[in-house]
């Protein structure tokens, strides 16, 4: 199965699911499908990395298998695990005495498919239907897990010592996301296509607001996008993300604020800025209204 026919097709179908892409995103999503390579997404929190994987699954009608990474994630949670309780039961239920089967047979029995618990990575590889495999926040895992991913990402296969190698019947569309809280190893990066998602430009952010928050006033949307843009230009600890500007828009609608003036901004700033020092700085710089020349 081909995932997308062309970059334009990818853009159109992703847009139809409500995920507005830019040129690079559409091209890279198309390439990930066409070359059957995993796609590594990096970028600040809340720019729609996870959302892209979900949008791909919606746009192509594939099911989403998700592996949420965290510190301490291991093989047993990511790949597969033997159901040892069931294995113990099986051994204890063996007839005792003269007609006891020899160990060799029991051994083969308890390491059969029946006792295998598949975890997301193996599940995604064994599925017959089109699948989007989302490996979320891969930078949160330990280095060892990356090693585990290598076989899956390059050959789409998993080796289980007792069973042999399970190869993918149909290659999943793999999306890895990372907040770059640590640098991923070269080996993982080499196997992936790379896309850095960043804050969108004003026009695209306005479109996103309109599609995510139906009923938002055109003028308010414009003011909001402009303000968020200025906030991002400041030296903040955490710049507002797309998700937060969407939240802000919803807040404004809930409070029935029709005009984003200084008072409205001060009242609702908590929705977008979550550090006390960021608040102070934002209020200081927005109030004065003095321009900070774009230093880039």
């Amino acid at each position, binding site marked *: 199965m081909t995932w997308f026919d*062309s*970059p334009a097709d990818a853009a159109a179908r992703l847009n139809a699911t409500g995920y507005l892409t830019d*040129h*690079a995103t559409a*091209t*890279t999503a*198309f*390439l990930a499908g*066409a*070359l059957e*390579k995993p796609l*590594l997404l*990096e970028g600040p929190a809340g720019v729609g990395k996870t959302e892209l994987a979900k949008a791909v699954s919606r746009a192509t009608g594939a099911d989403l298998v998700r592996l949420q990474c965290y*510190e*301490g994630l291991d093989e047993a949670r990511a790949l597969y695990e033997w159901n*040892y*309780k069931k294995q*113990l039961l099986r051994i204890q239920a063996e007839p005792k005495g003269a007609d006891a089967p020899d160990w060799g047979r029991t051994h083969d029995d308890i390491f059969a498919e029946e006792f295998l618990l598949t975890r997301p990575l193996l599940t995604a590889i064994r599925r017959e239907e089109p699948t989007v495999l989302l490996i979320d926040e891969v930078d949160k895992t*330990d280095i060892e897990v990356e090693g585990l991913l290598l076989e899956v990402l390059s050959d789409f296969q998993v080796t289980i010592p007792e069973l042999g190698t399970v190869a993918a019947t149909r290659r999943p569309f793999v999306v890895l996301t990372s907040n*770059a*809280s*640590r*640098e991923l190893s*070269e080996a993982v*990066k*080499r*196997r*992936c*296509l*790379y*896309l*850095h998602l960043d804050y969108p430009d004003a026009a695209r952010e306005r479109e996103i607001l309109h599609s995510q928050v139906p009923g938002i006033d055109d003028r308010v949307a414009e003011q909001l996008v*402009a303000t968020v843009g*200025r906030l991002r230009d400041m*030296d903040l*600890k955490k710049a507002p993300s797309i998700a937060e500007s969407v939240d802000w828009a919803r807040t404004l609608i809930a409070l029935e604020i029709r005009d984003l003036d200084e008072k409205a901004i001060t009242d609702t700033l908590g929705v977008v800025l979550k*550090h*006390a*020092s960021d608040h*102070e*700085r934002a209020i200081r710089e927005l109030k004065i*209204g*003095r*321009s*900070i*020349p*774009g*230093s*880039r």
Partner: protein
Amino acid sequence: MPDGPAPADEYRSGLLDRHLAFIEALRGAGLSVSLAEDIDSVAALSVLPWGERATVRDAFAATLLKKQSHRTTFDALFDVYFPPMVGDGVGRDGGEESGEDGAAGQVRDNAAALQDFRDRLAEAMEAGEYDEQQMRQMAAEMMARFGAMPGRGPGLSSWSAYTALQRVAPHELTDRIIEALLAGGMDEGEANRAAARRVGGLTRMVEDDARRRIAEEKGPDHVADVTVRPSIDKIAFTSARRADLEEMRRQIFPLARRLATRLAKEQHARRRGPLDFRRTVRASMATGGVPLTTHHRPKRPHRTDLVVLCDVSGSVANFAQFTLLFVFALREVFQSMRAFTFIDHVHEVTPYFRPGADPADVLTDLAASTSHAALWGRTNYGRAFTKFDEEYADALGPKTTLLILGDGRSNYSDLHTDVLRRMAGSVRHSWWLNPEHERNWGTGDSAAPTYGQIVDMIECRNLEQLEDFVHRIIGPPTR
């Protein structure tokens, strides 16, 4: 590459050569492009239409570029090897001049032409909707008319963004643009910002265009070697430009956060202490009394007291500020931390680093406090060490790590090595970070080798080396 006979020259399109040269240039600029990625990029291009330059760039970016900090380098090199246009481009003004070259070149550049061009430029930049394509054309035209310089030899020409920008002086148009934008209904702050952004954008475009033209004449490899700057974590503190410093300052906190996460994780991995018998037995209930997983008690993490002693004289001021900021961004991994600045006198700056304080404010306070660190204003390491030993000796203890930042250039004064030796002897470990290249240690008035015999001196010229160093002193012991 296949081993077969090379295709005859007349059949070569040059496409592959250009591609390989591009890859080589990327490698030369510090991007580690593997053969596998090289092959991927060609595979990507083979499934894509080539009609649009942006598509080709995105395909290269997706397959070759694996680190966002390399993006500027990548973009610059892509522009050099796959320029958006050739010569003056297709949209050449009017077309009436395009026939003659030499003579027309003279006419195209005179006072009247300059005035005319500035008017048109201002008009384009005043427009309510900013047309990037048009600006790019304008930048190309500006370069063609006002940026040409005679080359090194007869018949050669060269291009200078500096000349073009000086002559046209787009920043002088700023006021005019602001007025026009105000008339167009923007409020004042917004107009100011928009104007600054547009002028900045034009400057960048003109610089890009100069690079492109030089690449056309001298070959891209030449430009790639000369004009492309290294990525931000490799720029030396002492030779950074203003814009670079700004960018570095933005990088400090993400960098520190990344390092803190990494350290926390590594500590976590080593935290496996003695067996927790109770928990292990309890857990074994689930598996019929067989203790399949063992549980362990956590180990207490070991924390360091850090004392930073920092030369803030002009020659190393940038380096000092960055290192102080970086170390303080990491404060949670240290037990306690005190910082002192000196030139020829010692001043404690710990209070400026309030938890959660705004880094920009901290830097301003630090800069303002520099005067407290100087009596005569000439760097004197010996005096500073003596003063420190007299006034703040209590800061150093057997659990302390002492970190000295400076280039060790002490204006040929008394070095007071005995004091430093005593200080180094009273702490657990002492380090000296030197922002100069190791080959310059000991030249001129540098006392680096002398001091280097007493404390471990380490070269630390850029953010990358700084991060490495901090990881080393607080990370797991390598032995």
